[in-house]
């Protein structure tokens, strides 16, 4: 394999596996159960066996007062779930769903990237179409949980 191609390839890989992603993958935030759960959903990625359960606590004001997740998955899906839970706590559900849809559209490359703050780190998957499903799994699960959809959210 020639060196130039190799370097390019490595650069793209480093873009995908940024420090922030690897950090969240190794030490996911909000990992575990919640004491009071109002909404929950499962996310399954049959492609690689990523599997997570998302817990939300939504208050009377329709605000996500707490969020957590359990499960196992690749670095991308775990980091994505970790970053997501961090981001959505405190949002109203409608806001969270809008944000989620914007993120999904952005990483699938359908829209031009929106302002995502830290979640910008997930943009690396745009060059890796087969990994988009990993990045979006938690977000699909959140949408299901808010919709109170009882089928496992699948990215297929």
């Amino acid at each position, binding site marked *: *394999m020639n060196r130039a191609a190799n370097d*390019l390839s490595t650069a793209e890989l*480093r873009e995908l596996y940024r420090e922030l992603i690897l950090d969240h993958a190794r030490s996911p935030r909000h990992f575990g159960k919640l004491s009071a759960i109002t909404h929950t959903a499962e996310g399954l990625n049959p492609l*690689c066996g990523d599997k997570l359960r998302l817990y939300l606590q939504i208050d009377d004001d329709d605000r996500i007062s707490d969020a957590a997740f359990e499960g196992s998955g690749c*670095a991308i899906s775990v980091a994505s779930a970790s970053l997501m839970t961090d981001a959505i706590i405190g949002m109203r559900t409608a806001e969270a769903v809008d944000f989620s849809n914007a993120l999904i559209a952005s990483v699938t490359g359908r829209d031009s990237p929106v302002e995502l703050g830290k979640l910008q780190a997930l943009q690396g998957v745009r060059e890796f179409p087969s990994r988009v499903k990993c990045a979006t799994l938690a977000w699909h699960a959140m949408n299901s949980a808010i919709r109170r959809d009882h089928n496992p959210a699948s990215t297929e």
Partner: protein
Amino acid sequence: MSKSLRQARSEARGDIGACRDDFPALAQKINGAPLVYLDSAASAQQPVAVIDAVAEYHRHIHANVHRGVHTLSHRATEAYESARDEIAGFINAGNRREVVFTSGTTESINLVAQSFCRPRLRAGDRILLSQLEHHSNIVPWQLLCDQTGAELLVVPIDERGELDLATFERQIESGVKILAIAHVSNALGTVLPVADLVRRAKQQGVPVLVDGAQAVPHMPVDVQSLDCDFYAFSGHKMCGPTGIGILYAKEALLERMPPYQGGGDMILEVRFEGTKYNDLPYKFEAGTPNISGAIGLGAAVRYLSGIGMERIAEHESKLLQYLTEQVSRVPGIRLIGTARHKASVQSFLLDDIHPHDLGTILDHQGVAIRTGHHCAMPVMDFFRVPGTARASLALYNNRVDVDRLVESLAQAKEIFSQ
């Protein structure tokens, strides 16, 4: 070096390396690097001989089979039926009536579950599988359990990925109605002692289905010497087309089984008051068959036989040994599947890198491996892993492929050590 020269040299060395040039897909670059295809257990590539046989069929021979007097129909029928003969010879079936074309291993197993087993199972009857089965040899039996009230019994495996034969001995005597077992595990590479298992099952009068999807591409298979009742495999795993597979079954059993599907071709006579079924194997081939698929599979069998299944087995076995050695040396590697008798497959994990991430990093260097549960979730559960990375070999792989795999594992470690 010209192709023929290279071929002459490698043939002189007694290896089959030159056959790689027969596979156009292997000559491409992926992400800027020459493709290293280590995913043949999922689906193998096709040699030009197969690609051309299918195209040529459609250019000059195609028509519907069995039902026409015109020349093309006759030619298509001859081509389709010769493919059956070729396949019957390849697995040493007793006769061509025992070779049923299906859409693949999965359909072959569903056919046996529904047509052979469903009418004879009662609530509480037992179906014996092993823990290393592919989902295609689990789910059809679960559906059957739902339909009949029968129960699954599972032969456990050990840490190497071998069958627990002591438990099998007890289980086979506990009133089992069918044993359905892989010849070679797709997740672990374990070669099961099928002939012995069949012998024990026969002593108990238990019929046996062997899932040969991962065996037929990699070793000589003789269904008569195995003495199994049913043997299922897929075209696309043995350099043939997708959408075609085989159910081998003993004639006496097929005779007594009701049809699986109804339609054209599987009947002699249709009246609304009742219908007479066709002879074997046609009774089990409802509708227009996958004619070009069968012809492509015939071509694949000719191609593999031309090289020789013994030689292929030897080549792959040496290469697997090399692969396992080289991969074992990578620090942080955990091998999954270390049976004493193995074929063509090595699963592993590297550090705490998720297999899926590993797959992406390798792919970025042109190395195609499969990652995940390999449609064998119970195996993953046994090893308490969410999935593995799996490198799988075919006749066209060589040591360079293995070396490239090992190099790219090193790069994965580097990326993840940030």
